[in-house]
């Protein structure tokens, strides 16, 4: 048992305990106010009518789905370079959250597509990329579950995450090359002209902030769970040895 196993998780848990109430509160306010504002107090879009209200869930979940993978990539790199256990556990904790967000993005997209495009599903580049991202999440989680030794599992999943990121990026461009899409361009663009109008923009930003904080709170809490599980196992081994 190295010192890292205890010292750093303790520091992490202390920080996490301080940040978490704030994160949960902002998440609840952001999502609550953003969705209620968006659902009840925004006008209909002149082209898409009331279906525009789906955007307040669709865009934030898609945003988290992609950024959760980015976070896992960074955490995996930190684990491989610094052997920081909390980092590996944080990557593990984030994956199911990212998976659920990907599913929400795909589901709301399909439900939105039905009245607007006349189809639940089309092999559009964005939709296809998300489907591929979904598969990557599944493989990553399955690999974590399959390996007994926690350090080996952390190592192998970290490598999968690195290689997977490269291939996910390549798939993104391959898919762009392969099909022309129905999906509109980026919703969040720095180019003012392309952006959606302020009426929709403000509740959307609020909702995105809420989703982001929800992600952070969930990952902090779940990382704490993983640390507790790991420590329980270590103590159980020690108890058995002493008896």
């Amino acid at each position, binding site marked *: 048992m190295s010192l890292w196993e205890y010292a750093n998780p303790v520091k992490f848990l202390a920080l996490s305990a301080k940040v978490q109430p704030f994160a949960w509160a902002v998440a609840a306010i952001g999502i609550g106010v953003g969705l209620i504002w968006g*659902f009840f107090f925004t006008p209909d879009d002149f082209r898409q009518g*009331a279906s525009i*209200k789906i955007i307040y869930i669709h865009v934030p979940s898609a945003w988290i789905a992609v950024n959760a993978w980015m976070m896992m990539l960074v955490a995996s790199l930190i684990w491989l370079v610094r052997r920081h256990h909390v980092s590996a556990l944080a990557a593990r904790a984030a994956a199911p959250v990212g998976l659920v967000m990907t599913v929400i993005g795909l589901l709301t997209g399909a439900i939105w597509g039905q009245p607007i495009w006349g189809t639940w599903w089309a092999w559009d580049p964005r939709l296809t990329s998300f489907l591929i991202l979904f598969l990557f999440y599944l493989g990553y989680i399955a690999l974590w579950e399959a390996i007994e030794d926690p350090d080996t599992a952390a190592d192998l999943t970290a490598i999968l995450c690195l290689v997977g990121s490269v291939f996910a990026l390549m798939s993104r461009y391959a898919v762009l090359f392969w099909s022309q899409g129905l999906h509109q361009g980026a919703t969040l663009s720095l180019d003012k002209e392309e952006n959606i109008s302020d009426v929709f923009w403000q509740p959307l930003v609020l909702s995105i902030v809420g989703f982001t904080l929800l992600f952070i709170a969930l990952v902090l809490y779940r990382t704490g769970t993983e640390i507790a599980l790991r420590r329980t196992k270590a103590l*159980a081994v020690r108890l058995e040895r*002493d008896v």
Partner: protein
Amino acid sequence: MPDLGKYTEYVLLSYGLSIGLLVVLLALTLRRGRKARTALRRIEEETSRNGKN
């Protein structure tokens, strides 16, 4: 309840499904977290009862 016109069921369905999924994720996370933390507390007490070694 705002008038959603012909999109009523689509909008409600996507809100319902999404919020449902989020609640399930939250519930599973909390359940697993509670269980893990209780198990840890129990085994920590046992360890300290056995003397510090």
